[in-house]
Every structure is written in C-alpha cells, then in structure tokens.
C-alpha cells in the first residue's frame, strides 16, 4: 500500500491575504510531505489555515489572497511554475477536491449527472456524450447512490445532503486522480451519514490506491482514517507523525492539549483540559513560536525564535524548542 514515494511536497509555503485591515499571514513557511498511496490527515482548529493550504495546492486561493513564497512539488513538478492552462488540466484529473458543504458545491440549475459528464468532457475532448453518461452512471453506482439511473437526472435540491456529497465524491473520482483532497467532507452532515461517507472514502481509497489528504478538526475521524497526521497551528505545521505514534506519544504541547481536550467514552477522566487562550490574530501574530502565549512550557527562547520542524524520532517531526 505504502510505496514509500513522495507524491506531494510542500516547501516553505507562505500565503498572505492583503486586506484593508492589514496583511493576514494565513500560511507561513509551511512544510509537509505526503507519500503516494497513504491517507494523510491535516488537523487543526478552525482558522489555522488548513483549507487555504490545500487551495494553494490547486492554485485557487481566493483574492485578496496570494501565494507569496514557496514550492509545491506534485509528482515531480513544481505546480507554482505552471501556466494557468496547464494547471487547469491538472485540476480534477490529477488532483481532485471534495468540499465541506455539499449543499453549495453543485450548480443548482443543472442535473447531477450533467455535472459529472461535463467534468469528463472537460478533460477529454474525444469522449462521446453517450459514453460519458454511461460512465457517470457507473460512478454513481460506485459511490452507492441508490436509484442511480434516476438520480442522474435529478437536480441538486432534490437530493439529500449525503447523496449530494456522494455526487461530489463521484465527480472527484471520475478521472482517477492521483491525489484526492477532502476538506472536512463530513462536517456539514448528520453523524450517521458521516460514518457512511467516511467508510465510502476509505473503501474507494483502498480500491483505487488514491492518495487521500483529509482535512479535519475532528480527532476521531483522524483515528479512524489516517495513516499519518500533521498538526497545524496558526499557519504552520507543528507536528507530523504516524497516527498511532501521535496518539500514543504526542510531543508538541498543542497536540497534547488537543488530545487532552477530547472526552473519552472508555476511560474515566475527571476534567477535560482545554487549551487556555484563543487562536492568535494573524495580522499581528505572536513573535517567535506562535503558540507560546498559550503554552505552559514556554521558555524565553520561544518568544524570540520560531522553532523549525525537526525529525525527533523516525518519521516523527516536531516544531518546538523543547526538543
């Protein structure tokens, strides 16, 4: 399963938003690597920059945002150096993305089937319309949409949230992408549907050997799905590890805080320990290590110098002055 090869490498990525209130440094000097075939989870609180990072991979950062620095190497090619047309060809066919809110992801004026077919046609001029519709039907069946034949001609408002998400997933997988990015794909769904969608994603990932990046703030999902995990805080990665390793041996104080804040069904915990303070202001972030104001272990150096992401144990990276 894990071929040990790099599929995506992000180096020193910085994405800034130039607003009237100031420059928001949403992503700052971010580094991470994703291996071919794995399920990679990107975890962090709302607003830490995870979605922006993935949008940067697709070069679809909304204005007034701009990628100001860095390299994004996908399958050996630096995406930031490609032309817009070359990038367009990659979107959807090599890298696909599934959004958080399926209710707004589909164009309300076109049928579900049409939106799959147009994706197929956009990347392959020679495909016949009839064949495209046949393939759309196959895809719908693949993602377990009941009454697939009928649903091809349904409009989005006629479908439930779970079904819409399945349609979105089928569109994402329609061209056999190498990389699938799922941005909080279940947050907007009911809990029972969440489980179904996650199961579906896992099955498809294994069956087609797609590399999956899961963005989430839900550690339960991480435990279920991921092979490796990266923890993100205030625009940078603070820890990367194998999933078991992360839960057993969290090194970064933030990660420890996150894990300590989860209620446990099995163990008896006297008190939940929240992390004190709030997410920092990204226009005027704290100096040095951005977590230092909330960290119980902070030393004087934490205020001065931003810690680098270092490999502390095999495959386990941390950005913290404790190590």
């Amino acid at each position: 399963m894990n071929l040990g090869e790099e599929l995506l490498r992000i180096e020193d990525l910085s994405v800034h938003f130039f607003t009237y209130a100031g420059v928001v440094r949403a992503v700052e000097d971010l580094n991470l690597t994703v291996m071919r075939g794995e399920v990679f989870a990107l975890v962090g609180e709302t607003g830490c920059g995870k979605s922006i990072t993935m949008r940067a991979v697709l070069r679809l950062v909304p204005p007034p945002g701009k990628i100001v620095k860095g390299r994004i190497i996908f399958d050996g090619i630096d995406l930031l150096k490609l032309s817009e047309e070359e990038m367009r060809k990659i979107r959807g066919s090599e890298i696909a993305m599934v959004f958080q809110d399926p209710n707004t992801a589909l164009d309300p004026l076109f049928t579900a089937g049409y939106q799959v077919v147009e994706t197929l046609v956009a990347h392959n001029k020679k495909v016949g319309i009839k064949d495209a519709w046949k393939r759309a039907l196959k895809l719908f069946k693949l993602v377990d949409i009941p009454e697939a034949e009928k649903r091809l001609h349904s409009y989005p408002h006629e479908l439930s949230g779970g079904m819409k998400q399945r349609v979105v997933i089928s569109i994402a997988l329609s061209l056999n992408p190498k990389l699938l990015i799922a941005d909080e794909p279940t947050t907007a769904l009911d809990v029972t549907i969440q489980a179904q969608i996650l199961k579906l994603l896992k099955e498809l990932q294994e069956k087609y050997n797609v590399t999956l990046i899961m963005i989430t703030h839900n550690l339960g999902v991480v435990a279920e799905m991921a092979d490796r995990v990266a923890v993100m805080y205030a625009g940078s990665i603070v820890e990367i590890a194998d999933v078991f390793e992360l839960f057993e041996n969290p090194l970064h104080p933030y990660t420890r805080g996150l894990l300590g804040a989860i209620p446990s069904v099995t163990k008896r915990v006297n008190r939940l320990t929240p992390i004190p303070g709030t997410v920092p202001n990204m226009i005027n972030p704290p100096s040095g290590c951005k977590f230092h104001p909330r960290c119980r272990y902070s030393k004087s150096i934490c205020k001065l110098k931003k810690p680098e992401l270092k490999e502390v144990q095999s495959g386990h990276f941390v950005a913290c002055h404790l190590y």
Partner: protein
Amino acid sequence: MSLVALKSRVERWKVKNKAKIEEWKLTLRVMTMSPLALSGLIIVVLFLIIAAVGPYVAPHDPYEIDFRVMLEPPSPEHPFGTDEYGRDIFSRVLHGARISLVIGIITLSISVPIGVILGLISGYYGGIVDEIIMRLTDIFLAFPGLILAIALSVALGGGIETVMVALSMVWWPYYVRLTRGQVLSVKENLYVEAAKAIGLGDFWIMFKHILPNIISPVIVLATMDMGGVILTAAALSFIGLGARPPTPEWGRLVADGQPYFPEYWWYVFFPGMVIFLTVLGFNLLGDGIRDALDPKIRRTIEFKERG
C-alpha cells in the same frame, strides 16, 4: 424645564447612546469619503436651500408679465431666458423648487407611514392578515406607476393636490413589500422571541424593537423615492395633470416651453436640467447612504481610517 435641567438631560442621553452616535458619525464620514455620495449630499442641500429661500432671492417676480422681453435667450439680466409672456424663467425655476419639494414631502409623508405600518402588520402577524395585505398590494402593483398615477389623477380632478394623493397611492405598496421582507427576516431573531416571552405587547415589539432595526433600507428607499416622486410629478405636469399655468412647477415649465422648441431652446432646457440635477442628487445621496450602511464597505473605510 430649566435650561440647566435640559442640558443635563441631553448630556445623559448622549452618554447612554454613545455607541449609536459613534455609528452615525461613522456613517456620515463614510458617506463623505465617496465623491459621488458627497456630490449627492451637496446637491440635495442646495435644493433644500433654494426651496426654502428661492422665492425671496429671485431677481424677478415669476408672474410678472413684460411683453418687451418675450422669448429672449439667456442673458445676465435673465440667466435662463424669458418665456412667451416675458417672465423670467430663472425666477420661475427658483419658485418651482419649493413646489417640487412640497409635492415630494407630502406624497412620501402619506405613503411611507402607510406602507411601513402595513408592512409591519403583514410581516409580524402573517396568516390571513398577511394574505389580504399582500393581495391588496399586488393589485396596486399590477399597474406600472405612471399609468396608475395618470388614471387616479384624472379621476380625482387633476390639480396638484390630487396629483399628490395619486402619487401616494402609487408609492405605498413598495414600502409594504420592503418592510414586510425586513420584518420576516428579523422576526426569527432571538430578541423578538425574548420580548414576547417577557410579555411585551405586539405593537410595542413592532414599533420599539423591530422597526428601529429595519429602518435603514426604508430611509434609503425614501431618499431615492424623493427624486422619483419629483420626477413623476414633473412628468404628470408635462402631460397636463397637476400644476396648472401659471404655476411654475418644473414639469409644467417644460410643457409650456415645448411649443417653442427647438428654436427657443432655453425655455425647455433649463427647467428640465434642474429636474435632472435634483433627482440625480437624491439618487446619489440614496446610493451613498446605502453604501455607507453596507457593513462590508463601512468596515473597510473604518480600517482605512484607523491605519
């Protein structure tokens, strides 16, 4: 009440409403930052001043006939030229400003309150009351405005007073629609439920809680409608309804000048130009107020200021 007591009352009110006052000041500042909105404000203020003092500063009597200077082109003596009776058009225009202002104010003073109250009731109570009011509104909106105004003016006799009544009948439905829409979106807010839970009466809730929160779009619309009413009233006068000669209402002036057009162009040009500028002023102002109240744009300016 003694002056001292009054002053302290005002001071206390100022302190109590400090946040609101700050917001209004910000609105004004935001408005003055946009050149278009500022021009609108200037034009409207100018119009109001002219309407107020025009008749006193006019160089000639607008009704004074002088056959020696019939249909003369613009000159220092007569900046807008003279009409077929030798009357100074500039003075007539100055007097006309007041007429237009009065028409606008009276029309809106009737239609806005009626529309807003009906809208409040319709939106708040819903159900059959809502249905009835909406059907009534739809019937009135089944006609294009000008046509309905014409029909009503004709039926009621055709003088200026009837024009004002007719125009009020044309304009009130828009305020019902606007207010009702606003009420519907605000009705679900928690503070309305809270007010009900405490046992506040319906009318109290409607007027003291809901109304202040939805008044802004009404103000914007009323400002722009001021221009619209003046324009429509002028159009009615032009086709013979409304002001009768020799009343120097602006639309009437253009109608009077039409037979002498295009050779004696000034007769039609100046009154029409004045109508245009006044209405433009109100539209710019209304636009400016709307932009100033739009949260996105406000905060942008606010941040720019704070630096």
